[in-house]
């Protein structure tokens, strides 16, 4: 049985300007110990998916319209709050994009790192501090015994993200959700953090959902990758297949827009138009208005994600009908 199974998840936001379908029918699973990459542009629903799993969607305006999030046999959306709390923050933890705003500036690092242990771990403060210290060392903070008593502002961005990781991992979770943890950091620090996540994952044997917009990060880190567009998954495959033979036109376009893969001096390939407004979704494929392969059939119905090869699914009706050259 997979560690996490998300089925037909729909998280909508009801605002004065209409209903924003941030996540609109997403299903996926995560096996124990594996790394799943979630790629998409801003507004594609990748963060809201994570927030829904963690129960962090503010309701209202958010509303979980349908679906289930089953973690190790427990449906987190339907179980009692007490049961959900015993899973979230203990067996599933999350690290956020912005290490500058996700730590409490009024509390010492030590207080913040041991908080999950005091809530979930049933340990004394002294033992908790000992484990916090070991964790701080594990995430590569030098002189941890001294610096654990610092306040967040005394740390640099990379160090704060390490503190966030230490805080997330101190309960030894089985699943770590990392929502763009390196986007706000420099490339050199990003390399350090990725290395760290890889190492700790190996040591603790946890599964990771890694959300990013950077295809480069996904290539090095993830076993499987799913690409999101307008609140839906448009393609899912193992990392090698996704980079070698992307099938959905959006994945292909995304890959072609990476500057380092394009000859210098030439115009960069761009996806025409803008990402769709998720409050005014079209009856058909959300990517059709920007897609070079779209025809009338694409505007008919929302295409379902279906398997094209073992472990490789996509949601493009023209690709499935064989109307698009697979190697083009």
């Amino acid at each position: 049985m997979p560690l996490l199974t998300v089925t037909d998840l729909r998280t909508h936001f009801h605002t004065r300007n209409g209903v924003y379908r941030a996540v609109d029918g997403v299903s996926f699973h995560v096996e124990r110990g594996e790394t799943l990459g979630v790629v998409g542009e801003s507004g594609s629903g990748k963060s809201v998916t994570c927030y829904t799993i963690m129960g962090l969607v503010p309701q209202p305006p958010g509303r979980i319209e349908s679906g289930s999030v089953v973690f190790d046999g427990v449906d987190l959306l339907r179980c009692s709050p007490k049961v959900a709390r015993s899973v979230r923050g203990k067996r599933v933890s999350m690290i956020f994009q912005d290490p500058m705003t996700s730590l409490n500036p009024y509390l010492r690092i030590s207080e913040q790192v041991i908080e999950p242990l005091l809530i979930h771990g049933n340990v004394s403060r002294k033992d908790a501090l000992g484990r916090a210290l070991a964790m701080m060392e594990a995430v590569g903070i030098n002189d941890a015994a001294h610096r654990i008593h610092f306040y967040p502002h005394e740390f640099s961005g990379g160090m704060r993200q390490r503190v966030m990781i230490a805080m997330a991992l101190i309960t030894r979770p089985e699943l770590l959700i990392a929502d763009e943890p390196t986007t706000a950091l420099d490339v050199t620090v990003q390399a350090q953090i990725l290395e760290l996540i890889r190492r700790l994952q190996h040591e603790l044997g946890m599964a990771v959902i890694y959300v990013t917009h950077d295809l480069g990060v996904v290539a090095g880190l993830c076993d499987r990758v799913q690409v999101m567009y307008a609140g839906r998954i448009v393609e899912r495959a193992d990392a090698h297949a996704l980079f070698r033979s992307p099938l959905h036109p959006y994945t292909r376009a995304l890959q072609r827009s990476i500057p380092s893969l394009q000859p210098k001096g030439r115009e960069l390939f761009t996806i025409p138009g803008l990402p769709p407004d998720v409050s005014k979704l079209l009856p058909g494929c959300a990517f059709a208005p920007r897609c070079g392969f779209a025809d009338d059939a694409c505007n008919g119905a929302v295409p379902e994600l279906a398997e094209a090869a073992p472990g490789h699914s996509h949601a493009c009706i023209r690709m499935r009908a064989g109307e698009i050259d697979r190697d083009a």
Partner: protein
Amino acid sequence: MPDEPPRAVPENILELRDVRTHFPIHRGFLVKRQTGAVRAVDGVTLSVRQGEVLGLVGESGCGKSTLARTILHLIPATSGAVILNGRNLGQASRTQLLACRRDLQMVFQDPYASLNPRMTVRAMLAEPLLAHRICGKKDVQGRVDELMRIVGLAPRFARKYPHEFSGGQRQRIAIARALALRPKIIVADEPVSALDVSIQAQILNLLSHLCREMHLALIFIAHDLSVVRHISDRVAVMYLGKIVELGPAEDVIDRPRHPYTRALVSAIPVPDPEVERARQRIVLQGDPPSPINPPPGCAFHPRCPYAIARCREAVPPLVPCGPSREAACIRLDELP
């Protein structure tokens, strides 16, 4: 661009001579004493030719943005000279400075913060035209429409406010505003970092198109080396207030010489699983040191895998290494 024929006598439109920008640190409540200085920019010598795109890269805190603001004279240089078209901005009078500002414009990183939310696009684009008396009230409308067309926005959007636009469109407005005075040089501080990949490419295409068409020099500041490699003619790598490597963009990024540039290049994730998993990465330890008291000698030596005792002794100067390339490392010839 590489395939273009060489231009007749490339003229240096902007020159920086040993520019230093330090921020004093004061201690004491009643009697303030200066106890030190943040050496944000610490001895930068650089020249930009007409129509050239110069990429400026480095980690956050290395002084890229301070250098940009120093070039625009938004922060006056502590010492050294910023020379625009033969005129030293530090010694220019207010009127002269105002005239110089026409030639020198800036595009900021965050298109959400750099546009006034209470001004329509038209008001924003008309303001510099009227302030500098480029055109009278009657001709403003025509020029605003033209600017919007240049950056790929329909003139009918002129009555809208910034919040009605997406990030990419806002950055187009910011670029149009910078172009309003027909500058000779634009300083763009991380203009695409806040944008999505697909929108990034559109803005990059627009910038390089404008540079070619209008013969505009561009100082392009970014931390994304692959973007810089694509758009720039030359690239300068900064570390702790100093330039450590300078040369043609492709050359520097494909064959870096300075150990810091090597580490920076090796940290970029490659969007290919096989290459990415096979390659050896130089992972730098720790964070860049504080610019308040930089390490003695080469500022990079505490993190450098090739550092030896001699690196602590003196600050290495930028020395030529190969065709139109310079690097600041005393061990260049000894490195593998």
